[in-house]
């Protein structure tokens, strides 16, 4: 397939999300430029091939949901659950992301160049998330594995009931959730942050200026004496 043939323009003012997604699901390669997304939901959800999708405007809920292999870039803001349950690939949001960005995602890279709202990385299962701005409350709630890098601040209850995900925050943390504690930032972590920032295309943030948070692992085995920790 030539480069010219593989470039597709889709205007969501003229074409339905269903038609767009059907075309994307049928393709094994190619580049899509999507105009007038108008906050529509589930744009580019369920992709399975290494496609490139550029969305010129704001996307609604679940943009690039369950993504596999594709690169999806939103030149605007993204609604609830952008890249939810992503398995692989790359999803990038130029603006802000609403709640539950990258929720339960197993792999791939989610980059939010603006801020992400509450529950960013909730129940994440292996994804890497880099947020240029700040994240809202209960981010990384019950996060299992993967890495969350926040260049700005984190809201209340960061990492509540955290499992093995690694959290890096450069700014302030309003409060830590149950069983989430600050840990030493060692050289290996700085290297890890640097690699994630590079992957996200962020080159003006010093990786040594972050703080690391992780699970105290006190709640891994339920004990009645810990019941108060959940209150």
């Amino acid at each position, binding site marked *: 397939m030539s480069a010219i043939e593989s470039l597709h323009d889709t205007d969501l003012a003229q074409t339905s*999300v*269903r038609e767009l*997604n*059907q075309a994307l*699901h049928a393709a094994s390669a190619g580049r899509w430029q999507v105009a007038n997304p108008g906050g529509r*939901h*589930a744009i580019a*959800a*369920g992709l*399975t091939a290494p496609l490139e999708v550029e969305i010129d405007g704001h996307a*609604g*809920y*679940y943009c690039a*949901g*369950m993504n*596999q292999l594709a690169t999806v870039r939103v030149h605007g803001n993204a609604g*609830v*659950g952008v890249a*939810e*349950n992503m*398995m692989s690939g790359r999803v990038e949001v130029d603006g802000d992301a609403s*709640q*539950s960005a990258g*929720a*339960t995602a*197993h792999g791939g890279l989610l980059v939010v160049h603006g801020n992400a709202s509450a*529950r960013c990385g*909730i*129940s994440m*299962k*292996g994804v890497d998330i880099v947020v240029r701005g700040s994240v809202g409350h209960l981010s990384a*709630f*019950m996060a*299992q*594995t993967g890495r969350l890098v926040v260049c700005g601040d984190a809201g209340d209850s960061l990492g509540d*009931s955290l*499992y*093995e995900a690694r959290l890096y925050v450069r700014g302030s943390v309003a409060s830590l959730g149950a069983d989430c504690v600050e840990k030493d930032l060692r050289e290996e972590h700085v290297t890890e942050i640097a690699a994630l920032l590079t992957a996200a295309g962020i080159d003006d943030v010093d990786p040594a200026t972050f703080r690391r948070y992780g699970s105290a692992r006190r709640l*891994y*085995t*339920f004990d*009645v004496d810990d019941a108060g920790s959940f209150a």
Partner: protein
Amino acid sequence: MSSSNGGGTSAPGWGLRESATFDRATIAEIQRAAREGIYDIRGGGAKRKVPHFDDLLLLGASISRYPLEGYRERCATDVVLGTRFASKPVKLEIPITIAGMSFGALSAQAKEALGRGATAMGTSTTTGDGGMTPEERESSKILVYQLLPSRYGMNPDDLRRADAIEIVIGQGAKPGGGGMLLGQKISDRVAEMRNLPQGIDQRSACRHPDWTGPDDLEIKIEELREITDGEKPIFVKVGASRPYYDIALAVKSGADVIVLDGMQGGTAATQDVFIEHVGIPTLAAIPQAVEALQELGMHRKVQLVVSGGIRSGADVAKALALGADAVSIGTGALIAIGDNAPALDEEYRALGSAAGFYDDWHEGRDPAGILTQDPELASRLDPELGGRRLANYLRTMVLETQTLARACGKSHVHNLEPEDLVALTIEAAAMARVPLAGTSWIPGRNGL
């Protein structure tokens, strides 16, 4: 303690009177709580007696109704689920499905046995928290894939491999509750499927991580349809608490099928206090759900699958007569493949229980090899034999259902209707909204 009675000696134990309020089970629980300082966790559903299908009777045909010949005239049992929107609805040969039970709670052998039994009878089985195993997909001709709050093991490939998708909002044993798989059941394989360390307690969330409320649910369903190109029926499963409202909201959100689980429905593990005190009986839930569907003009268009305490063809017939399109079984299916077998009584007793009573499903020591991840225990269950027994059980229930339906003059089990039912108790009459036997009185109807 023996006691004397008017000068004569009473028979041993005759002078003992057990308190209805502080009965032996209550006393034992208080003693256990005082000893351990934590609530009791167990598997199964509500053990308390609640109004149930046993409190209903079917009215066989006579002069005013015409019966069908028992072994000759056709009484169809097929059901199609997902006719509202899905391009590939699920076609079942019988109106009894296997409820969602996880690999993790159940051994791989048990999941395979369920798949084999269901497939032999042309019906579906359902995954659970923890994802889909290859054995399960292989052994199940029709497999419903659950989307749960934890999203353990959730991946889009399995979503596409499934025949239907079930969004689990809750279950009858614990509406409003999440789950906990204790560390002793977290084998390497279970841990890997759930992206968590081996051996730790795994909490399953009670809320979905990326949507809240019916408006969001509608968008979530839209996303799932997009990902699967509109092929798969989308089921929405709720625990019975406020079914009139929940079913209306599920329909509004775009569900193809509603799964309604009453309080007798089982769970792999939750607090006993939750199981016994939250939610409403299956009998009370069905009429509310049917009312909501009828008011929306969606009865039979959005199919209703009912679960929670279904044991026999009589229960199936009565559930269908109240308006369900199909039923789902969990506990009954586990019993059929070998759970609580009398032959294992000695081993159950070694665990502090007995055959017929064993409910410590969360501990992973099930001698039947069903509710365990211990390789040695799990290997005791022969999936082929388990599958045959489940098929036998399902076949028996279908024959019973047909027998009752024919007696009521129905050429399809779906033709059973509330008019075919009466209740034995006022409570059951009020809940099921059918007359008390021998009267035309439906408590609560017409201001009476």
